[in-house]
């Protein structure tokens, strides 16, 4: 199950970046991007249903495992095609490819979610959509919907 972001909660502290690097031996898979002074957005793998990276991977190193876009390090040649095929720029190649693995095997799930001090990340799609709906409802109640 992918990690969902609630951008309105992100405070741009980069804790998720650091936590990800810590768990993955210094190679992180989250990048917080700043849009002027208005927002900060952690960018990472969407675990796309039809993932481009798996379509171009000729050895089968990148493949789908249920909802997850998984990676088999043994099969990777580090060719770099996946890096170029990802529309979001969230697959890296450093001798071999690396990307978000949702902290596979880690007790407690993805470290970025647990670390985020603003509770901006979750694996719960319903929570993300519920928050978005309640924001919209609040805006409507305040007569702000124009």
């Amino acid at each position: 199950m992918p990690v969902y972001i609630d951008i309105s909660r992100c405070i741009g502290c980069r804790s998720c970046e650091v936590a990800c690097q810590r768990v993955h031996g210094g190679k992180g898979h989250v990048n917080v991007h700043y849009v002027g002074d208005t927002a900060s957005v952690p960018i990472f793998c969407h675990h796309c249903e039809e993932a481009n990276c798996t379509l171009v991977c000729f050895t089968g190193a990148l493949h789908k495992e249920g909802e997850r876009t998984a990676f088999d390090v043994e099969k990777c040649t580090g060719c770099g095609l996946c890096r170029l095929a990802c529309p979001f720029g969230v697959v890296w190649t450093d001798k071999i490819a690396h990307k978000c693995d949702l902290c596979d095997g880690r007790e407690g799930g993805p470290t970025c979610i647990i670390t985020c001090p603003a509770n901006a990340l979750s694996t719960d799609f319903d929570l993300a959509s519920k928050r978005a709906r309640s924001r919209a409802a609040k805006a409507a109640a305040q007569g702000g919907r124009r």
Partner: protein
Amino acid sequence: MIKVDRNLCLGCLSCSNVCPSQNITRSESFEKRTIHWKRCKEECDLCVEFCPAKALTLVPFDENVPEPEITFDLVACRICGSHYATEPMLRRIESVLPANLQKDSSDLEWIRICPICRRDIEAQKVTKQIMMTRSKSI
């Protein structure tokens, strides 16, 4: 020895990465990537097996044949101008991905944009959505 089909080679990093004897070297400058295949006597065909383009074959050792070398110009990102990929690699991606996935909702040909700018664009898109709800609640 390794024989290279120049018309097929993508200029990717596969063979130089998998070669256990460092017989395939790669040098990269700001705008160019050069791959050099040394005269190789090893009985190993990892590079042949792991070439995504099937551009390599093994041929009998011959001192008189020059060592193959190909230099690729790296393609510049349409947004920031940084040189990020070889043209054959991008063409390979364009040939594998379905046409409807090669442009985003705003008709942007994202394959021709470097990964860093792709992340920036994604951040801007998401921010636009949140700004709409922010302005509604003021």
